[in-house]
């Protein structure tokens, strides 16, 4: 049913929480291996859309296929295993250090643990490897989240406002990283208020309003 070149295929997707439609009928097709930016005013439904794509909320009506998983009939947990998620909240154990968090992830994924030092260095946390995650600054937490994703290398990246709390150098690093990820064939869907900084990326931009797609341009 789903064409192999599409990572996201939504048709009239509605997401309800407490009877309120977070998404009010989104129809959208995103191609595998591309960079897509979701923008829109506060409360437009960006986070909700990403959560739907990550299998974190259920589809209430309409239909959708993400990464080959049907959102209505498929196993949402299966979907979650294919996507990488970076949200506002920290996504690690607060009491474990940066390194211990990554070691846990690496072991769970069956990856060699000697990648960890490299990854921590890449996100600029090599001076904070033994700091408990809860003591890290807001931007450092975001970086640790990125490190976790780097270790996982998911096929679909869902990033909710990654720029927020990152400093200048962090944003540049982030743009480079996304370039790499796209080149390696993975798909990236980012929500953002600012336009991306690097022109080399030429993303497709989808604008939401009132839980609907109101504009879509490449």
């Amino acid at each position, binding site marked *: 049913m789903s064409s192999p070149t599409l990572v996201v295929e939504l048709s009239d997707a509605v997401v*309800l929480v407490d009877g309120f439609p977070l998404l009010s009928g989104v129809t959208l097709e995103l191609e595998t291996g591309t960079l897509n930016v979701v923008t829109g005013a506060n409360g437009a439904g960006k986070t909700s859309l990403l959560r739907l794509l990550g299998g974190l909320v259920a589809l209430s009506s309409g239909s959708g296929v993400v990464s080959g998983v049907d959102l209505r009939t498929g196993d949402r947990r299966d979907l979650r295993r294919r996507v990488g998620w970076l949200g506002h909240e920290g996504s690690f154990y607060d009491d474990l250090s940066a390194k211990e968090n990554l070691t846990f992830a690496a072991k769970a994924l069956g990856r060699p643990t000697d990648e960890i030092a490299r990854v921590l260095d890449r996100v600029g946390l090599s001076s904070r490897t033994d700091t408990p995650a809860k003591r890290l600054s807001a931007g450092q937490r975001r970086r640790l989240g990125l490190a976790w994703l780097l270790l996982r290398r998911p096929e679909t990246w869902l990033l909710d406002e990654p720029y927020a709390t990152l400093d200048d150098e962090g944003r540049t690093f982030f743009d480079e990283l996304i370039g790499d990820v796209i080149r390696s064939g993975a798909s990236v869907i980012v929500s953002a208020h600012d336009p991306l900084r690097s022109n080399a990326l030429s993303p497709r931009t989808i604008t939401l*309003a*009132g839980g*609907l797609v*109101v504009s879509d341009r490449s």
Partner: protein
Amino acid sequence: MIKQLSQRLLGPVTLALLALTFWLGLWVTPPDRIQGNLVRLLYIHPAIAWVGLYVSFGTSVIASCLYLWKRTRSTIMDRVAYCAMEVSAIFITLTLITGSIWGRPTWGVWWAWDARLTSTAILLVFALGYLALRRANDDPELRARRSAVFAIIAAINVPIDHFSVDWWHTLHQGATVFTQNGNFLVHGSMLWTLFLSLFAFTLLFFWLLRARYRLEVLRDQRYAASLDEALAQRRREGVH
């Protein structure tokens, strides 16, 4: 056709059979040698317990299993499980109440730490816990899964309740009607009235379940209607 007719007749037939049971139980059958007129609770208490423990709790557990099994997963099963558990909670409560009323003159106390009484009370808490668990979760799918698992865990308590009288020989009446070797310990009109009461209360359960299920469907429909309104409003937020 037949289905429709039987649905239409369910209510009246249930009422008629219940009326018959009460008439037989209160006026036709004789008082007991030892218990006197108290024995008339025999036509209410066991039947209510039967419905509360086996018919409705059982329905709920079976529906929960069917929900968890992928091939039969549907909102229908979830709804049935929920409605049946609600009926079960009511009937278990009634079991406790009728039992206490019976216990006061026979044992001299309203409550005792008897194995069956305790396990029945625990079963009630399971049923209430089930209802509380449903209230605490908003996400329909999550709610359905969790409550299904909970119902299955709770089911372990039903056989314990049933066999408790044999395992822990205590105050409560042992198996009187359905003894292990198939001998009935009560006789004649009493026996038939007892069977009738079981049947009538079982029908009552199905009647209640159907009414409750329809209410749930109606609620869902009303919800769907209010949803269209909400959707339109949410979409309007987009246009300035």
